[in-house]
């Protein structure tokens, strides 16, 4: 079933649109840099001061920027359609009239959405590296603590960062799947997940979360930046992983409970 869920996902317009939009971001970013010869103001983004001299910085900056809205957005709209889209097309009842069990179908859909989260992160990293290389070539970069990072480690940092970002993305996707299962509304589920991101960012920005702030889902998106320090502080990275897993498993369990028990009426 997983194979066919992936096949269906790959053939849907919104999937391709999400991947295309993600791929476009580093390209547009490099194009804007080339035209204006002006990077983001210092302090607005990590590595910003090195942007104009070093292409290796491009994927790192775009990854940091994309976690704010772009990646949550493209993931939310695909994950929000996972069940709701099938309900509105009448295909859920068609599939569930066959031998496959609801749990197996749900896990296949969740796995396909997880693969999509990995794919958008990988596309952002891959296209970012390619665009950065074509724009300015690669050179060692200064890490966040000022320690130089070699080109090889810099490339590894990009891929590891993308991998780490995909974990809270999957947790967010799980929330969108939960909304998809409960509301049967694709757009509403996508919007709901994006609203969650905005509310959590607002709560964190205004200091409303208090001691819970380190455990907000949105704050896990920045954990990968710690890989650019020397020595690497593993505690926030490990925390990001288990906190994201906790969010994700909670949403998925709730979604599974509804999916396996709810009457299929359309």
């Amino acid at each position, binding site marked *: 079933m997983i194979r066919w869920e992936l096949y269906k996902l790959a053939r*849907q317009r919104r999937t391709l649109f999400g991947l295309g939009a993600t791929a476009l971001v580093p390209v547009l970013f490099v194009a804007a840099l080339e035209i204006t010869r002006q990077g983001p103001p210092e302090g607005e983004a990590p590595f910003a001061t090195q942007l104009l001299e070093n292409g290796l910085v491009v994927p790192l900056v775009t990854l940091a920027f994309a976690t704010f809205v772009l990646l949550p957005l493209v993931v939310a709209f695909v994950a929000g359609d996972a069940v709701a889209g099938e309900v509105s097309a*009448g295909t859920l*009842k*068609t599939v569930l*009239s066959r031998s496959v069990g609801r749990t197996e*179908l749900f896990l296949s859909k969740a796995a396909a959405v997880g693969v999509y989260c990995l794919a958008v992160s990988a596309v952002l990293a891959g296209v970012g590296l390619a665009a950065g290389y074509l724009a300015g070539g690669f050179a060692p970069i200064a890490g966040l603590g000022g320690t130089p990072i070699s080109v090889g480690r810099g490339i590894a940092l990009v891929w590891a960062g993308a991998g780490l970002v995909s974990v809270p993305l999957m947790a967010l996707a799980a929330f969108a799947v939960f909304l998809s299962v409960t509301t049967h509304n694709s757009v509403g589920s996508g919007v709901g997940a994006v609203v969650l991101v905005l509310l959590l960012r607002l709560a964190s920005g205004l200091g409303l979360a208090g001691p819970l702030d380190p455990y907000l889902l949105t704050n896990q998106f920045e954990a990968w930046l710690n890989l650019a320090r020397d020595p690497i502080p593993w505690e926030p990275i490990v925390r990001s992983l288990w906190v994201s897993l906790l969010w994700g498993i909670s949403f998925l369990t709730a979604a599974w409970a509804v999916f396996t028990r709810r009457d*299929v009426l359309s």
Partner: protein
Amino acid sequence: MLEVRDFTKTFGDFVAVDSLSFEVCRGDVYGFLGPNGSGKSTTIRAVFGLVEPTEGEIHLLGRPAGGPGGREGVAGFVDAPGFYDYLSARDNLKVLAAADRRKGEPPMARVLHTVGLLGRERDKVKTYSTGMKQRLAIASALLREPEVLILDEPTNGLDPGGMRDARALIRRLNEDGLTIFLSSHLLAEVEQLCNRVAVIGHGRLLAEGTIAEVVGADNGRPGYRLAVDDAKSALRILESSTHVTGASVAAEPPDGLGGEEIRLAAGSEGPGPIVRDLVAGGVAVLALVPARPSLEDLFLELTEERS
């Protein structure tokens, strides 16, 4: 093959199906009739395990419908069949075959040939007409090589030619050994195809049995159609006759009988003495035929009576 026992489904305070019981036997083409909102689709959904019965039980081939393996040996569709319109018919069938968890290659070419879609299987479903989608739905059901085929309004949206083809296909499948459970609004179609029927209204069973049993269930209806040259005089004679238990002038002109039509119920001696009385009274009897009530008559009577 399919046994529905005291099946009840409620949605909040609304009772969609109320203590419904019937049984479909091997080899049946079983018609499941009811007006919109009568609970037909809810019942079929429960048969497929898509909705949970509030009360009662449904068994398919001896297994509880919603339980593990409950859909083995059974295939079909409920409401308008849904397909992935961005995929080809072939890919849709492959997805559904994967959902069947079957070992080995599904009999793709055979089922496509059976429904007449061979050659169009690589086209995207969004290019298909309603009739082609219905045929694809039947193909997807046959892919499971079932013993029981459940079809919800299989001729919906088809043109007359498509309906004729669908009926022929259903007959052929039944001759090949499939038991068929068929929900339909088209009563003439059910009359042609089915050997047994259940009529439901407001979620309750109104009549069940062979078509002859169901149609003959109302003993009070006139048993003959009589065409005469003068209905008024004939009615006067019939009302005073001891051989007639009921008579009325038909509201519509008789089709093919000529003259004016009277519907009557004869006493135990049959129609012979009645004809004699009429002729003796100077009324010309143009035709006398048994008035077998149609399934449609009965359906409308049963469902309108209770609404």
